[in-house]
């Protein structure tokens, strides 16, 4: 009887460990592996429409023409493209990635071209 209880407890503990490991380690890792590239692309696209919107807004401040106002309205509608980015962000959060981890992936996306810079410096000799 005692052995049976211990066995059940062991199984329960193992299941719990596997469950916790899956939830806090494996699932976030899987989310990062599966979605990180797509997340970076969507972030770039969202950033792009947000920048366009800001530029259109600033343009209206400098020239209140019908064309500038029309472009601003179009760029406001364009922000809808960020919905895909928002959706994926929520999916990744649901898979257990923290907001800080998502920010880090975002930072990697923003500074992705820094690798080009390092490569460039490593392969070029500059003449002074």
């Amino acid at each position, binding site marked *: 009887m005692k052995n049976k209880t211990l066995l059940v407890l062991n199984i329960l503990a193992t299941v719990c460990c596997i469950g916790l490991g899956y939830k806090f380690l494996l699932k976030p890792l899987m989310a990062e592996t599966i979605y990180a590239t797509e997340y970076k*692309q969507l972030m*770039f*696209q969202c*950033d*792009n429409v947000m*920048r366009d919107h800001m*530029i*259109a807004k*600033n*343009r209206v*401040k*400098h020239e209140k023409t019908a064309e500038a106002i029309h472009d601003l309205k179009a760029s406001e509608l364009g922000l809808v493209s960020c919905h895909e980015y928002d959706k994926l962000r929520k999916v990744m959060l649901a898979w257990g990635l923290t907001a800080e981890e998502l920010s880090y992936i975002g930072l990697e*996306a*923003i*500074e*992705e*071209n*820094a690798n*080009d*810079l*390092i490569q*460039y*410096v*490593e392969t*070029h000799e*500059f*003449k*002074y």
Partner: protein
Amino acid sequence: MNLNIRYYFIFIIFFSSFVYAEKGLGKILRSVIIENGFKSPEYMYINEHENLAPEGEIFFKSNHLSLNGSISCATCHIPSKGSSDGIPNAAGVRGLGEGRERLLSGAKIVPRNTLALWGVGSKDFNTFFWDGRVDFGSIKIISQFGSQIPSHDPLITAVHLPVVEIRETLEEDDFVLAHKQESLSGAKSVYKAIVKNLITHEQEAIKNLASKMGVEIKDIKFLDIATSIAAFIRAEFKIKNTRLNNFVKRKEELTKKELRGGLIFYGKGNCISCHSGPNFTNQKFYTVAFPQLGFGKNGFGIDYGRYNATFNPKDLYKFRTPSLYNLSKTSPYSHSGSVSKIEDAVRAHYDPLSLIKISDYSDLQRHQFYKYLARNDAVNKVNFLTQDEVDLVVEFLGTLDFD
């Protein structure tokens, strides 16, 4: 007349007409150079606070000017690298050493090419940084300080900025985060902390500065430190005598290649439409579709340039025309340091696509590049030049070098 003597005379006449023509071209070039604002180094040098330069030199080279980042002005403005740092984008805090070594050691990247300091303290030099975030040349003074500019001397105001730039000289610690504001009043606490840092670590220089300024050490302000640094920059990085100055003012000759290069620079190339005035910059802002290297000030490989300072869409992708003094010593070139040869920098003005491998770009990157290209000012100003003509312009630019 003997046939040989006749040939001899023809040769003499031909040769003299050639020499005369060269001299004539020299005369033309000389007058065009003067017409376009050339001034001698003596005329350009001003330094009201020259007596503070020795202390300024100590602060310029002191890592304690950085509140928490172990970096000084001299880390990126290195004399052996033409007062720049020799790398495409500046290497800020968290790095070791200088230049290439610093960048590869994991320093935080400041996504712009370090501008050389030659002549930045000259008379009438009033627009600083690639995006002109200190601009005393416009009708309305532009600076991050709004109406509370720390000094009416643009160089002294410019010295105030790098020391409060996160990544450049500041680590984003709790103190910095608490005082992160883009205004002079917001930055005051950081300036006070920097002065305190210097009072602790550069005691001798602070003591001398206080005595020269006739104030108590406790009354030293960052403005005094910045004034001394500006005095050092003016003295150390002043424009010195060049071969071009000797040509214009002392009537010395240029080589044939330099002379022809000069005629292209002021003529067919129309380089002078932007590189004019005593510093070979009109200090205005233009789009030259240089390749972008690094992640750019706006991230994702984008740098909106002047727009980041004015928020006026007309300023998108525009950068301040750089000076051309000592150009051969300040490689790499452009706002992101993406070209390493002067020849390529010249070519970027009239044939930017020749420097870009468009197949390496993603769809969206390509789209961004078209936007950049569509705003290009340079191709409308600079004419097509052959490779030989580019080489001649480079020869001419060499006459602006000095030790």
